[in-house]
């Protein structure tokens, strides 16, 4: 097994529209936006609903559970990601959205499409945290992979 590298956690640029997402992540919660008019779960978060145009949306706390929709082991990282290979992926949340992220705490060679994952939170040191995913642990503490 290749020891997974520790990834950088650059602070995201905040806007008034998205700041709650990032500060909640620092508290270990994956916040999502829901449309009150058409019930769509919106990704990425914004004030209006891109499906129906309603401006009535609300935050709710997601489960943090999902599966790997696609992934790449990236050997040519740039900037802070330069160095050992890391996993960039889309994870399909059980709430529906497919979100860009990293798969961590696992040998990159063991990642597969469809793998069950759960959110883990990487503090940026600026009151926010990135939302990454690791193989899902069963209640008994065993991984499903």
């Amino acid at each position: 097994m290749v020891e997974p590298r520790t990834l950088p956690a650059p602070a995201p640029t905040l806007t008034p529209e998205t700041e709650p997402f990032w500060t909640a992540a620092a508290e270990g919660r994956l916040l999502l936006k829901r449309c009150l008019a058409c019930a769509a779960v919106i990704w990425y978060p914004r004030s209006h609903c891109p499906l129906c145009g309603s401006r009535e949306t609300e935050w709710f706390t997601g489960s943090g559970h999902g599966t790997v929709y696609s992934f790449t082991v990236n050997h040519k990282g740039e900037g802070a990601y330069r160095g050992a290979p890391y996993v960039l992926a889309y994870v399909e949340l059980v709430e529906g959205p497919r979100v860009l992220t990293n798969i961590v705490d696992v040998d990159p060679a063991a990642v597969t499409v469809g793998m069950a994952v759960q959110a883990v939170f990487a503090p940026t040191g600026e009151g926010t945290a990135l939302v990454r995913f690791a193989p899902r642990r069963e209640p008994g503490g065993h991984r499903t992979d």
Partner: protein
Amino acid sequence: MSRRTGARIVGAYEHPDRVITGKSVEQVHAEVALGALADAGLGLEDVDGYCCSGDAPGLGPISMAQYLGLSRLTFVDSLEIGGSSPVAQLGHAAAAIAAGKCRVVLITLAGLPRSGAFRPIWAAPEAPFETVYGPTTPAMYALAARRHMHEYGTTAEQLAEIKVAASLHAQHNPNAFLRRPVTVEEVLESPWVSEPLHRLDCCVVTDGGGAIVVAAPEVAKDLGRRSPVLLGHGEALKHGSDGRLDLTYTAAVRSGPTAFEEAGVTVADVDYASIYDSFTITVLITLEDLGFAERGKGGWFVADGGLLAPHGRLPVNTDGGGLCNNHPASRGGMTKIIEAVRQLRGEAHPAVQVPNCEIALVHGTGGSLGSRMASVTAILGVEE
């Protein structure tokens, strides 16, 4: 033009605030967009044309369409001529409507100069949710390649065949950046960039450029030069603004049919195709999207010399494409047009000239197969 089309301004909305705090620039764009649509009695789903300018954050309409939720666009415009931009776009919109390219065009302008933008104006609204995770350009295309492999069994060997065909064409192009033919094995043995994409699955990085001149037919007939004619044209965006991005197809599924319908031809009529080839996977998925190959059968289509001139299933990128010849400014659209012009004039290298080439297709891809993207399809014919 507007008199000819009868294009009308059906909705208008000015934001009521003069000092705005606690909102992003894109948020104000959304507020004026929804305001103008409400004034018109229309919704996001009615909009098939969108114009913005330098005040809009991100990659112009590609970012803004995803943010706003515009999923039916067949016409976009993001020219930058300062404060006069929306006035120019009013004319462009009327012309596009007259040409039958769209019916409802939304034009937005917004900014926060008094309150101070909360971040650089060029920072895209989606960027905070992506850039922090290390998405390089090849890595994003690799995500599309992986998903296609997962759903359809596409193989690395099949992707490699696309590079092999480009290299066999490029050997005849004295200006090509890479002129040496390569084998499938060489592609597979080249170093990983972003799995499953190897170094040789990627296009070249080259300086340079190109240009074309488009003119009215009465000008063209006096010039004594064979002048290919634009028979059909289609453009479309894909961005997954619903948050459920499907990586197995591109916006070519919409730009292609628009162009074919306008040209009155089918895939069977196409003698030569310039297909955008930033990566091998770009070509494979685009061939499926345009209908040259069945969905999921792109790997079969490109194998066994399928893309080779002059007698493959479909001769593609006979200059060597972006994969071997040239990808100037990291943008392959111009060189795609130029090689199609060479083919229609009968001026491609004799080794790769398609005999009696009468219909050529040019397909451009902008943005990323792995997130937001634009597809533009043009069908060219020899002059009558």
